[in-house]
């Protein structure tokens, strides 16, 4: 469905990355494949190193570190936060919401909304959309959107499909009403028939954790994982992205009545370089306008990859000037969502390590 917002903008972006770095080669022996085959995979998908948390660190830890940094450096004022959105697939608890836990930790005002959103690869777009909708309320002027995913503990070390590309990270995006006249075009679609293309089968109410769910089983491709591990149907996801994302971008550009070359950057979710290059080619945009260098440097951190790709590639530029950016996220749900908007000059766009 088409979405349209006005007189709102993103004013700051902070990325929080674990300092712990793992290289592809360090884990190759875990996989049931020859070295030659694994190196071929590395080259084809654009894998190298990734950031993952030390054992015991969860999504809220990364978020709290980031908020602490913003508060203590005067980049964000506690009393001004009217809504706290926490988008994750790795909440601290089944109950309560992690957003409330964070609100309590910082003793934020009661007169605000805390909301957890269960979204993954499209989680940045879904979160920004939600922030824009909240900002239509007269009592809401500033929304803090946190995207945080710590999925590495959920991925089997012996799963060559997912383990070499998963990363952990968090980001904090400030979204506000603005006196600047802004127009934001959006599009979002869902297909629950593909809900199990990306899944963690056990751990919820449908299949609680038990002795059976931890049993490691080999799949047809030689990967080992249990029901408690993340599992991805790579071919389904690839086909879905190639079929659905390019037409969505085309219709978004049509709605905004702008040519694809007028867009400064296409900041897309980062599944892997292979898939992103195919998407860029299919849309017909220069690969240079669609950076695909996040998985090889930090890993795929689900809903956090869009803030990371933005910070990593244009932090200096976006603090200086206004850029026309097309954001797009796609994956678990299935969900695919895009936004076309002007962003910048941001008051901050930076990264800190946990």
């Amino acid at each position, binding site marked *: 469905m088409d979405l349209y917002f006005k007189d709102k903008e993103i004013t700051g972006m902070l990325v929080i990355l674990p300092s712990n770095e793992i290289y592809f080669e360090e884990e190759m022996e875990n996989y049931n*494949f020859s070295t030659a*085959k694994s190196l*071929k*995979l590395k080259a*084809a*998908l654009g894998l190298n190193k990734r950031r993952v948390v030390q054992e015991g660190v969860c999504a809220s830890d990364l978020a709290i570190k980031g908020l602490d940094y913003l508060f203590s450096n005067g980049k964000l004022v506690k009393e001004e936060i009217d809504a706290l959105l926490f988008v994750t697939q790795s909440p601290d608890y089944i109950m309560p919401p992690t957003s409330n836990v964070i609100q309590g930790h910082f003793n934020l005002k009661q007169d605000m909304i805390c909301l957890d959103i269960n979204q993954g690869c499209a989680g940045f777009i879904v979160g920004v959309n939600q922030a824009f909708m909240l900002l239509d309320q007269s009592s809401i002027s500033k929304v803090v959107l946190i995207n945080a995913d710590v999925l590495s503990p959920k991925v089997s070390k012996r799963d*060559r*499909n997912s383990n070499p590309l998963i990363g952990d990270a968090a980001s904090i995006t400030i979204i506000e009403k603005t006196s600047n006249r802004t127009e934001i075009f959006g599009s979002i679609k869902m297909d629950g028939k593909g809900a199990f293309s990306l899944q963690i089968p056990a751990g919820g109410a449908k299949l609680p954790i038990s002795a059976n769910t931890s049993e490691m089983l080999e799949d*047809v*491709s*030689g990967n080992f994982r249990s029901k408690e591990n993340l599992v991805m*149907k*790579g*071919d*389904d996801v*690839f*086909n879905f992205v*190639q*079929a659905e994302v390019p037409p969505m971008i085309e219709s978004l550009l049509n709605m905004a009545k702008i040519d694809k070359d007028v867009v400064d950057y296409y900041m897309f979710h980062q599944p892997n370089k*292979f898939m992103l290059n*195919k998407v860029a080619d299919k849309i017909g945009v220069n690969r240079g306008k669609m950076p695909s260098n996040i998985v090889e440097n930090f890993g795929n951190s689900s809903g956090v990859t869009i803030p990371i790709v933005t910070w990593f590639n244009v932090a200096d530029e976006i603090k200086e000037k206004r850029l026309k950016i097309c954001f797009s996220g796609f994956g678990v749900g299935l969900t695919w969502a895009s936004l076309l908007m002007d962003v910048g000059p941001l008051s901050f766009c930076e990264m800190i390590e946990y």
Partner: protein
Amino acid sequence: MEDFLEKMAELFEEDTVQLTDIIVDFDAWDSLTSLSIIAYVGEEFQKTISAAQIVEAETIGGLYELIKNS
């Protein structure tokens, strides 16, 4: 057909391939080869096939039929 066989030889890292060759018996067969075939079929033939369909097609010839009939 010739282009198709050439592409298959490239993806399976063989000098040549025959229509009767069994897909899963190639040394280079794995999930990455499967994905590369899916991407090639999408680009070259504008058709969508799944990893399971490739395995079910059994041979290079079977894969060619699958693409033609999809």
